[in-house]
């Protein structure tokens, strides 16, 4: 049932007012608890599946962005942030309170497969238990961890005395029978192709993969907790750079900036929006170049020329970003209400450098097409491998190039406009192949679209009158959003929908700061792509997902 195609009759695509939705849900709604971004309906913890499937099948809310859980003085709460893939501005939040002493609520996994990992994370960090969940285990912390770190009674001084038991061989439990001869193989956490510290528990039948289970959390750095300990105005902004650290820093910063600005009702000057847009697209090019480079490593083997060529091109964007922000990796360039400083002086030099890069880019892209995508062995390796059908992608909440490579036409820059994107002329790239090749192609074509955006931004910035170059809005020194204001806002980061949920408690620090990482959801699709394929295809599929463990684990 989880793979069923959502009903996309006109009735479902119709935009409904919050009151109509309340009417649709009827008795399921206990009360209203609207968020700044969406109407919110409080429901009973045992009606989660019923409510979500009503919203999914009858109202067309087919995208479960994220599940954010938190603990209040008197209750636990899980929020299911729903959207539509066709129109992400139509949002609805389903709020599920759970008992303080016995925090159990029904799992949404049978309705949205993506809830699997999100609920495991909520269980792991906050301690909400989900009934009917297929596999409620810890996901980020070690399985022997004591307590739930984001819950209120968590004693952080208590030493974690329980040690990991000797690694159990899952072969003995699941896969061994007289009929088949399978082999259990640990791929990672240290393996040339895991792009960081990722552990794939793989079961092989010969060279073919019977089962693969990603084991994450090796790079968990308590980013959410750290953000909760920082003030809105200045102390949170440096953290986003450290999520997707593959030079996508500005895109991440924008996610926080967008959420916090909407929460505190800050208007960003247009000039700053153009700079933001330009910087963000530079980051996207850098990130996609690295994705191409490492994918070539995965498919071609090490020492491939493609890797060095792509790194070379990335280096040129990196130089531009360094000129703009003063940093190469941890930019910390955005501020609430704008950016930290104007373009580097002399401006003409920066513009001409940027234009030089843009002029040379088509030639590079052409070279990659010659080297990579038009190579017959490469096509043999990547076309029709790692298949991710669009319905499965949606069900897992896959976004970004992964979803667009499966033909899901979903890009927040266009569908839920922010920054200066809706003023510019560019296209959303999709491919219908649903395979490793399509995902790579989407990224390569997106580089060209980003270049188009940057070019238009440069034109705009060049002609911007000097007296109107306002880089920052007037923002109070200390921000204290209204008590109990809640917001979920997302931007299109390099890997997909990067969203932030913030709940304010009237102080200058967020009471709950939840990060919706696109890589986290995208990685969840790996078993769907990998099962039944050969080991090399699993490696290629993993490469084509382009995950960054810093963002998966946060």
């Amino acid at each position, binding site marked *: 049932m989880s793979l069923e195609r959502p009903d996309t009759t006109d009735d479902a695509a119709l935009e409904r007012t919050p009151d109509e939705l309340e009417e649709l849900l009827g008795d399921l709604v206990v009360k209203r608890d609207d968020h700044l971004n969406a109407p919110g309906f409080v429901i009973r913890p045992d009606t989660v599946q019923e409510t979500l499937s009503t919203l999914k099948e009858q109202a067309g809310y087919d995208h479960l962005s994220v599940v954010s859980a938190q603990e209040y003085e008197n209750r636990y709460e899980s929020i299911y942030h729903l959207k539509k893939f066709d129109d992400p501005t139509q949002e609805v939040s389903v709020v599920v309170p759970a008992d303080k002493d016995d925090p159990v609520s029904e799992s949404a996994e049978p309705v949205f497969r993506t809830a699997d990992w999100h609920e495991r994370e909520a269980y792991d960090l906050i301690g909400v238990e989900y009934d009917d969940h297929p596999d409620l285990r810890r996901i980020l912390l070690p399985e022997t961890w004591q307590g739930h770190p984001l819950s209120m009674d968590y004693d952080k001084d208590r030493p974690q005395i329980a040690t990991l038991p000797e690694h159990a061989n899952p072969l003995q439990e699941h896969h061994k029978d007289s009929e088949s001869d399978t082999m259990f193989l640990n791929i990672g956490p240290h393996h040339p192709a895991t792009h960081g510290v990722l552990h794939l528990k793989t079961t092989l039948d010969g060279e073919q993969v019977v089962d693969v289970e990603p084991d994450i959390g090796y790079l968990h750095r308590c980013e959410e907790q750290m953000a909760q300990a920082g003030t809105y105005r200045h102390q949170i902004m440096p953290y986003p750079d450290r999520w997707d650290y593959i030079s996508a820093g500005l895109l991440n910063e924008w996610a926080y900036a967008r959420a916090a600005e909407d929460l505190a009702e800050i208007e960003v000057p247009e000039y700053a929006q153009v700079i933001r847009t330009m910087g963000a697209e530079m980051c996207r090019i850098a990130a996609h170049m690295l994705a191409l480079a490492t994918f070539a490593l995965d498919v071609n083997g090490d020492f491939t020329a493609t890797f060095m060529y792509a790194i070379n091109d990335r280096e040129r964007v990196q130089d531009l970003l360094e000129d703009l922000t003063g940093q190469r990796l941890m930019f910390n360039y955005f501020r609430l209400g704008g950016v930290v400083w104007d373009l580097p002086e002399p401006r003409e030099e920066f513009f001409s450098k940027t234009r030089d890069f843009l002029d040379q880019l088509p030639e590079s892209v052409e070279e990659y097409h010659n080297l990579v995508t038009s190579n017959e*062995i490469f096509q043999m390796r990547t076309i029709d491998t790692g298949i991710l059908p669009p319905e499965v992608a949606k069900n897992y909440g896959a976004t970004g190039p992964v979803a667009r490579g499966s033909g899901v036409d979903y890009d927040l820059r266009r569908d839920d406009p922010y920054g200066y994107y809706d003023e510019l002329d560019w296209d959303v790239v999709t491919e219908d192949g649903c395979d490793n090749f399509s995902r790579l192609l989407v990224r390569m074509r997106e580089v060209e679209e980003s270049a188009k955006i940057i070019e238009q931004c440069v034109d705009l910035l060049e002609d911007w009158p000097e007296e109107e170059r306002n880089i920052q809005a007037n923002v109070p020194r200390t921000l204290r959003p209204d008590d109990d204001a809640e917001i979920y806002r997302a931007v299109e980061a390099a890997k997909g929908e990067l969203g932030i949920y913030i709940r304010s408690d009237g102080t200058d620090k967020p009471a709950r700061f939840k990060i919706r990482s696109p890589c986290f959801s995208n990685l969840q699709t790996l078993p769907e792509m990998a099962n039944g394929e050969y*080991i090399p295809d699993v*490696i290629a599929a993993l490469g084509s997902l382009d995950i960054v463990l810093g963002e998966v684990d946060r």
Partner: protein
Amino acid sequence: MGTAPAQLFPEFLAETFGLPGVLGEVVAALIAAAVVGNIVLAFTGVAGPWAKRKITAAFTDRIAVNRVGPFGLLIIPASAVQLLAKELIVPEGVDRPSWDIAPVILPASALLGFSVIPMGRLGPINFHLADPEVGFALVFAFASIASISLVMAGYASNNKYSLLGGLRAVAQNLAYEIPLIVTAMSVVLFAGTLQMSGIVGAQTTTLVTIAGIDIPAWYAFVNPFAFVLFLTANMAEIGRNPFDIPEAPTEIVAGYQTEYSSAYFVLFYLGEFVHIFLGGAILAVTFLGGASGPGPESIGFIWFVVKIWGFFLFTQWARSALPRVRIDQLIEIGWKGMLVLSFANLVLTAVIVGVIA
């Protein structure tokens, strides 16, 4: 066939130093073998730590080693010391002694192959150790011993990645050895002999003369189709890109050699490079006229070296540019494609040779 039988290297030594009798022959043979072996090892010594880095760097827009000595050449001793000084880690549960024997077999098998390769003349010396009547068959036999080493290493390492690498090596060698040898047989049909000197000798005649330039009857020119087939099968046989599947670092870490370190690793590394050079040598002898080339016969050795280094360059080029095929695709290409083509080539050659002769 062809030219008068040249004096072999051991005979030359025995004669020059006046070593009499059977004992003299043995001593001369050992010395000659040591000389040839060291020449080959010197190639790999240059190729592994230095040339490979420089070539790959050139292909990938980098500079590579340039700090240690002129052109970074002193990296060769530096790497040797570094590799040999490392700790030899013996994992728990490895199957000894096969774990220890495997890294010896690989370079040994490749070096053995050079015993029958006619490497050409340099001045009075003819670098050719032995010229048995079945030398051509022998060289393939030696080269394929390598698979045993890979399986032993993969199986004895008590590591799943190694095991996968070992299994892949067997599957790959089975799939490519047959097309390789069947294609080589078509050359035997042309030459009418299995003797190495005969095969080389048959290629010294002139095929055609175009604009005053003599095109020699190298089998690469006589039968380009067989040449391409042989080259492809050869790449798979020595496990180079796009057929480096038994190692495939991004998939199975390092395949059969995952658990090897220090001197054992050096032996494997060495073995692989000797194998590349042996592959180049077989290719040169079979299709590129062995040591023949412009100029007097006494510089033939130089031409031979140029040819095998050319082949080495080709493998490195492929490594920088080509994606790796998947194991099932490789087997498919081998059994369904190459095998059929190689037999077609053999039959065609047989018919042509039969009609002409």
